[in-house]
């Protein structure tokens, strides 16, 4: 329904006036006089107000075409020998044109006048052929569309290239770097950044005591080699890909096999798979593996190719409601295609390509046809006219031994199922007799027979009989409605859980993957106004036209079993020559270290995104990234060893002059994101279960509201949850393994801005609201982890009165430092008061002490010092 969300355009009339809105209209200075030419000053005005009726998409109302000076003369809009009397000027000056929308602003009319007075010059001779969409030099010259040229490092005495670029921008702003951060802050910062967890006291100690000159790069290396690194940076990429364990839409049915893609991402990031390979695999792993429908089992026997196919789960993450009951099935399929284009373009191109789905992009040089060129890359595998349901796109890849194992497991589970069904049968049989007993002996037989007869087959007499004797209870698959069967019901619940647990041991090797069925790829048509019911001319696959140097994409690569389109495109994207991909990635990486990107809009580097103040730095880092072989770990190390990264949070001058921290003269505090808040609670409590990978941890609607980890025990319709069964130690695994059911976000994550994947998330929101505070004060998980902390710490450091040792352990784990004398004193008196209160409330001595420490631990969890990365 909201496919057009980003695809519509603003009203023409307002586009010019509002396009510059992000910069308030104050302090504007007169630009230096630039020679007026058609392309630079005039065409943008006409494009916004006039092209839609006079030139674009075959529209030439009144025969007028305004796309070129040449065409204006040809079609009579310009009076060649008497320019100032031209119809163009008359029409806009009088307000007769544009017919629809607001008249041109006086300044715009004045610009046209000025241009005509200057002789209506063009910047260069105009081409004879007007392509589908005509880009101006300014559009082609937009910074992010130009090839990445590695800028020379400014020679300003800074040893580190990143610092040299940053320092160069500080000149003239009266800014300088903040002093270096202390070692504890530095390691905490790095650990949150790279692992999403606070450092352990041992890690801190070893780093603080490491007096070698390269102690810091060693510390960074150590963090980069932790398997938690992949969980953290994999999660960042999963946002961009829109990873979800459900299909979206109103029904939001579960997706059982999406997690293989999540594990592929985490594994690849941990293995530091070069990002060019990583991207190629995700866009075209099936083509790399030469996957075919019939040859799949053979292909998937090979581990490398298995991984490549798993990688294409990337292209299957967008919502797919095509198996739901849709009023318009074709529209649902088309939505999948549109979402795929949107997800790929926002994550890899950093452009709002989706805006060109219905017409030329209103701001960016992306034509309507361009949109369909990109679509043609994905159409062979999605192919709405020969749609395959998500199930039909899944690839089981069991090895014979796995098949055998799964069958064995199923047999064991079935045996437990049998015990359960027998139990139910026996209890019902007994219950029936209990109920029959009070009845007159004569009717017992007929009532029994009536009850045992299947509902549909009962005769009218039988029904009447059952009604008469109040025997209308049915046979359920549980024992909840039977009197005096609590024990048996408990046993039944246990058996259900047991069977489920047994089945969980089954190996899952079913991949959500992109694949093509081979043969002639479907023809992609441009859809008039984006409406799939109005196909127009055929459009071949290709890159956005504004991007220069792109190779031709084959319609059909005959050396492959598939069309080869995505593979060719992926190779181009990762060729090192693509202007956007590395910039987009590096900008996003940067934002995960510094809270904002060098270009602040991570998913829109188009015309509305001016070259950022740190544009040279961005280009340098993009170039460096590609030259290093798309090596992200090396990139982290480069950035993290800079003074820019290592500086302190405080810089009073910068705080005053540069509140948005554009010039990077300090490291801003950053609120931990949703997953890091939860994972850090678990880590500080000493309760984090480091198990990696596998099926997602199930989420459940809690009867008291909110979504928690666990298994729902619900009624037959699944709409009333009675209780939630714990997941045991699995409930303390990292948040990246929590099931991402779009409509059931885990509450503790949602409160801290877990994104809703629709279809993906290119940039997270960060909010600060009271429900977060309520969560830190009252949520089950927070209280539970504080308790766990208290129990564990007291066990190791026993005592029946609050101890400063406990305070030290807490401070060390949560803040990485020892508490001050004042903090110890305040904490001890807080705990002692609490202990006494608890003792008065009839808690046992042990409980009272534990609760007092837990209460303190909770305060620390809730504190800003804990919730913000230094």
């Amino acid at each position, binding site marked *: 329904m909201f496919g057009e969300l980003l695809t519509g355009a603003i009203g023409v009339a307002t586009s010019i006036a509002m396009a510059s809105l992000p910069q308030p209209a104050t*302090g504007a200075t007169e630009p230096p006089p630039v020679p007026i030419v058609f392309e630079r000053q005039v065409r943008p005005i006409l494009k916004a107000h006039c092209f839609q009726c006079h030139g674009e998409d075959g529209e030439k109302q009144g025969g007028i075409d305004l796309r070129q000076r040449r065409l204006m003369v040809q079609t009579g809009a310009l009076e060649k020998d008497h320019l100032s009397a031209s119809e163009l000027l008359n029409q806009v000056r009088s307000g007769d044109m544009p017919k*629809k929308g607001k008249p041109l602003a006086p300044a715009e009319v004045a610009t046209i006048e000025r241009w005509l007075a200057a002789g209506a010059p063009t910047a260069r001779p105009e081409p004879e052929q007007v392509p589908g969409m005509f880009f101006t030099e300014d559009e082609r010259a937009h910074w992010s569309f130009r090839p990445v040229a590695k800028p020379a490092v400014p020679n300003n005495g800074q040893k580190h290239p990143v610092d040299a670029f940053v320092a160069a921008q500080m000149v003239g702003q009266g800014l300088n770097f903040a002093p270096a951060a202390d070692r504890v802050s530095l390691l905490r910062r790095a650990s949150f950044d790279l692992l999403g967890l606070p450092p352990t006291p041992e890690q801190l100690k070893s780093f603080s005591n490491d007096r070698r000159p390269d102690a810091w790069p060693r510390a960074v290396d150590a963090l980069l080699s932790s398997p938690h690194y992949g969980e953290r940076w994999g999660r960042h990429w999963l946002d961009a890909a829109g990873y979800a364990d459900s299909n979206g839409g109103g029904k939001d049915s579960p997706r059982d096999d999406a997690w293989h893609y999540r594990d592929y991402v985490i594994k690849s990031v941990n293995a530091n798979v070069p990002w060019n390979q990583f991207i190629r695999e995700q866009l075209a792993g099936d083509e790399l593996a030469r996957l075919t429908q019939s040859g799949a089992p053979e292909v998937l026997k090979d581990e490398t190719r298995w991984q490549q196919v798993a990688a294409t789960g990337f292209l299957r993450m967008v919502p797919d409601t095509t198996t739901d009951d849709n009023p318009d099935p074709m529209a649902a399929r088309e939505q999948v295609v549109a979402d795929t284009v949107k997800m790929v373009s926002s994550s890899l191109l950093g452009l709002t390509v989706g805006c060109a789905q*219905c017409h030329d992009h209103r701001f960016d040089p992306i034509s309507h046809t361009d949109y369909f060129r990109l679509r043609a890359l994905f159409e062979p595998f999605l192919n709405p006219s020969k749609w395959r349901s998500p199930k039909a796109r899944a690839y089981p890849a069991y090895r014979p031994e796995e098949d055998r194992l799964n069958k064995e497991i199923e047999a064991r589970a079935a045996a437990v199922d049998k015990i359960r069904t027998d139990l139910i049968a026996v209890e019902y049989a007994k219950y029936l007799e209990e109920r029959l007993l009070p009845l007159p002996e004569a009717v017992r037989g007929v009532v029994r027979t009536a009850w045992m007869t299947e509902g549909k087959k009962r005769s009218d007499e039988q029904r009447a009989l059952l009604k008469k004797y109040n025997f209308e209870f049915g046979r359920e698959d549980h024992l909840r409605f039977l009197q005096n069967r609590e024990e048996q019901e408990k046993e039944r619940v246990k058996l259900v859980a047991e069977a489920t647990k047994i089945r969980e041991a089954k190996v899952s090797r079913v991949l959500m993957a992109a694949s093509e069925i081979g043969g002639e790829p479907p023809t992609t048509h441009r859809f008039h106004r984006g409406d799939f*019911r109005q196909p127009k001319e055929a459009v071949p696959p290709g890159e956005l036209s504004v991007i220069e140097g792109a190779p031709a994409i084959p319609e059909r690569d005959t050396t492959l079993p598939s069309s080869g389109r995505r593979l060719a495109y992926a190779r181009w994207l990762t060729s090192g020559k693509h202007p956007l991909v590395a910039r987009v990635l590096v900008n996003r990486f940067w934002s995960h270290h510094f809270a904002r990107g060098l270009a602040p809009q991570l998913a829109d580097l188009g015309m509305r995104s001016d070259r950022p103040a740190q544009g040279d730095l961005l280009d340098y880092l993009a170039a460096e990234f590609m030259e290093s072989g798309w090596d992200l770990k090396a990139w982290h190390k480069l950035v993290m060893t800079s003074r820019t990264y290592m500086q302190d949070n405080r810089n009073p001058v910068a705080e005053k002059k540069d509140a948005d921290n554009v010039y990077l003269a300090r490291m801003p505090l950053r609120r931990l994101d949703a997953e890091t808040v939860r994972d850090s609670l678990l880590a500080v409590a000493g309760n984090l279960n480091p198990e990696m990978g596998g099926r997602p941890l199930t989420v459940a609607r809690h009867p008291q509201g909110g979504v928690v980890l666990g298994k729902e025990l619900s009624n037959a319709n699944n709409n009333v949850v009675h209780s939630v069964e714990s997941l045991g130690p699995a409930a303390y695994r990292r948040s990246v393994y929590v099931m991402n059911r779009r409509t059931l976000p885990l509450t503790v994550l949602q409160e801290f801005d877990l994104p809703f994947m629709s279809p993906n998330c290119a940039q997270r929101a960060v909010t600060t609201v009271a429900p977060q505070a*309520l969560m830190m004060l009252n949520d089950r998980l927070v209280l539970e982890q504080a308790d766990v902390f208290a129990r564990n710490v007291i066990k190791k450091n026993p005592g029946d009165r609050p101890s400063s040792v406990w305070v030290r352990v807490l401070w060390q784990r949560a803040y990485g430092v020892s508490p001050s004398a004042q903090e110890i004193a305040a904490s001890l008196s807080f705990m002692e008061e609490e202990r006494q209160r608890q003792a008065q409330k009839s808690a046992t001595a042990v409980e009272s002490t534990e609760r007092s420490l837990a209460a303190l631990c909770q305060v620390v969890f809730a504190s800003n010092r804990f919730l913000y990365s230094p």
Partner: protein
Amino acid sequence: MNRRSFLSQITAASVAIPWLLERDGLLAAEGPVKPDLDVTYDLLPKPPHFRPRAKAMIDLFMFGGPSQMDLFDPKPLLQQRNEQRFPGKVSADNAAGASNKIFASQWKFKKHGGCGMDISELLPQMATIVDEVCWLRGMKFGSNAHDRGTYLAHTCGLVSGRPTLGSWLTYGLGSLNDGLPSYVALTAKAGLPVLTQENWTAGWLPSVYQGTMVRSEEPRILNLDPPPHLAGKGQEAQLALLRSLNEKHRAANPGEQDLVARIASYELAAKMQVHAREAFDISNEPAHIRKMYGVDDPATADWGGRCLVARRLVERGVRFVQLHIAANENRDWDNHNSIGKNLPAACVAVDKPCAALIRDLKQRGLLDTTLVRWGGEMGRLPTAEATGTRETWGRDHNGKAGCMWMAGAGMKPGLVHGATDEWGHEAIEGIVTAPDFHATVLHLFGLDHKKLTFKRNGLVASMTDGQPARVLTELFT
């Protein structure tokens, strides 16, 4: 509460805070402007620029673009020329699949009330409040894309990242209540709206001014209950220690405004534990009130419950309440297809609750000081989005016309203002642009849209940010 007591309340709260004076001084400032690190951004009541009419606002946000010619703006010409070719051209900037076929409304209109406002049979309840409401047929926010239209409706700008109206109001005026957020977003049962948190973001205003999202069912706010063993003194002691730790941390990081907001969030959270349950609890509302809002009817329960909550919040001094439609459900106004089926469904969900809200506010004397807005981000086209059979026809987006109404807080009741052309295609009279709308709302709250400014990175920014904006005084009593 009547107007007089409200005004006296404002005056009482209007401590002469140097803040405002300083802000006024800013307008004359030259050169790059520096942010105020020494200014504390809080929710204490602030004096407005001039005498306000409104104290609170309820924004009934009808995402999707309600169809003006099927609801509030009958166009006989569409009936006469049904399915003929539309002369001229429908706005070329429409999004998807427009045909040139004129598409008549399928619903009957009748004049209602003393003002004689035409209301479609789809909205029988709204028809009963026509004389309380100021009808705006000249809405023209200018964008026909959902996202940009929504940005315009909430932030007055076209791009993401700007502060929303509720943020500007709480920034400018502070909060009038002590135990609830001053800016509340009431989300739908089916989930978050399109653009999620951006609908109530503070943008680049300090984060203390962002909206707080509230669930549509009980518990509407989670985690309101302290754990039994810490309730009372235990948690008070926790909050006291937390405050001292946080203040120390904040003193060490004066450049970080978010820390202030978080400290404030704990204070608010503590008070919410006391007040919020009662404020959000509609179970004790009398039966006739529940019935009036349709709380117990599945068709209206979600909107009805939330409208009732909105009234309760306004009664308790909440400044800005917004009701949203879920992105995930099909009960919205974006009727591209099957409008014959989908529009009535969208109407049923909100008609009764919205009408009840106005009546209820009025009977409690709250309508004098509460501004209510009903409307979306755009309207729809007079032509058909003609795909499939006639049953599946719908209407496409239209940024040039729409329909909305405002009520209360000195908006002229029963005024039918503005007009579209004979097709309902474009607003031609009494035009209300997004900047006009926002300047007008701020004005009702006693704020001058040019003077309510915020300094950021060397610039002075405001809600309208230099766009032409007119306070629509002709709509005021």
